[in-house]
């Protein structure tokens, strides 16, 4: 497990991450359901909602991977299994949205 981390330290960091995940869940709901941009913004409002939703989701995912899945404490070699699929996925999403035309 984590170098120099006691069980109590680990437990503390798990609970911190748990709290952060709850707060971010609340945040993403508020941003999507209770924050309304002016009608005149049109498509930009949708783009903003999608972007905010995805940024919060990526932040949550990172916390889960980093602490719950022990990437923070484990052999750094394992990070290759995150960075490569993540990179490919980002390329895919970028190609489909930003390069895919003004349909967003």
């Amino acid at each position, binding site marked *: 497990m984590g170098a120099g981390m006691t*069980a109590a330290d680990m437990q503390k960091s798990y609970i911190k991450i*748990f709290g952060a995940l709850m707060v971010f869940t609340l945040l993403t709901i508020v941003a999507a359901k209770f924050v309304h941009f002016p009608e005149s913004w049109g498509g930009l409002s949708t783009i903003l909602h999608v972007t905010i939703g995805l940024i919060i*989701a990526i932040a949550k*995912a990172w916390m889960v991977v980093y602490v*719950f899945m*022990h990437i923070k404490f484990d052999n750094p070699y394992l990070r290759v299994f995150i960075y490569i699929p993540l990179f490919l996925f980002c390329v895919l999403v970028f190609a489909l949205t930003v390069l*895919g035309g003004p349909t967003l």
Partner: protein
Amino acid sequence: MSSALSLAHEPVTGIRHGKLGMWIFLASEVMFFSGFFTAFIILRNSNLSVFAHGASELNWPLAALNTVNLIVSSLTMAMAILSLEHGNKSKFQLYMGITFLCACGFLVIKYIEYTTKFAHGIFPGTNSFFGLYFTMTGFHAIHVIGGMLPIGWMLAKSFTKRGYQDWERVEILGLYWHFVDLVWIFLFPVLYLIF
């Protein structure tokens, strides 16, 4: 009992085979779900009104409750691994039990969501949005069930006379379980929220 996992460390990576295998599997799972997200982006961009209308018919408070369910179960899974690593059997049983119950709760809520949709005459074939909604959440639910089987097995085994001490196996299961939570972290905003 743990012969498959207690092999000498792989000489190059220094990572146990079981854990390395799970990470490779999870990388392939990322690809698997990426396919659905790709289909979602392409179909959404050519059917914006269908997708906006479909998403507005989903019950997001129930999905939010399910998000909490999975986050709690992720925490308890991490705690269960920690407890077993330090030989605390009763805490391991408590945390694994909560994890299992959260997974049950997730499936019950999913069942309510699905049956409500069916009652309103909404099926996977209704339109492209609901086709993807049922496919993505359905495959995710199958992953939840797939996780519950070993969780239940390890939990049941820990109540036997021999008990269950193999915390490294639980850690590998934990990787999978956190990944299931991770997929939901993306499904929740993409399907329910961002329209």
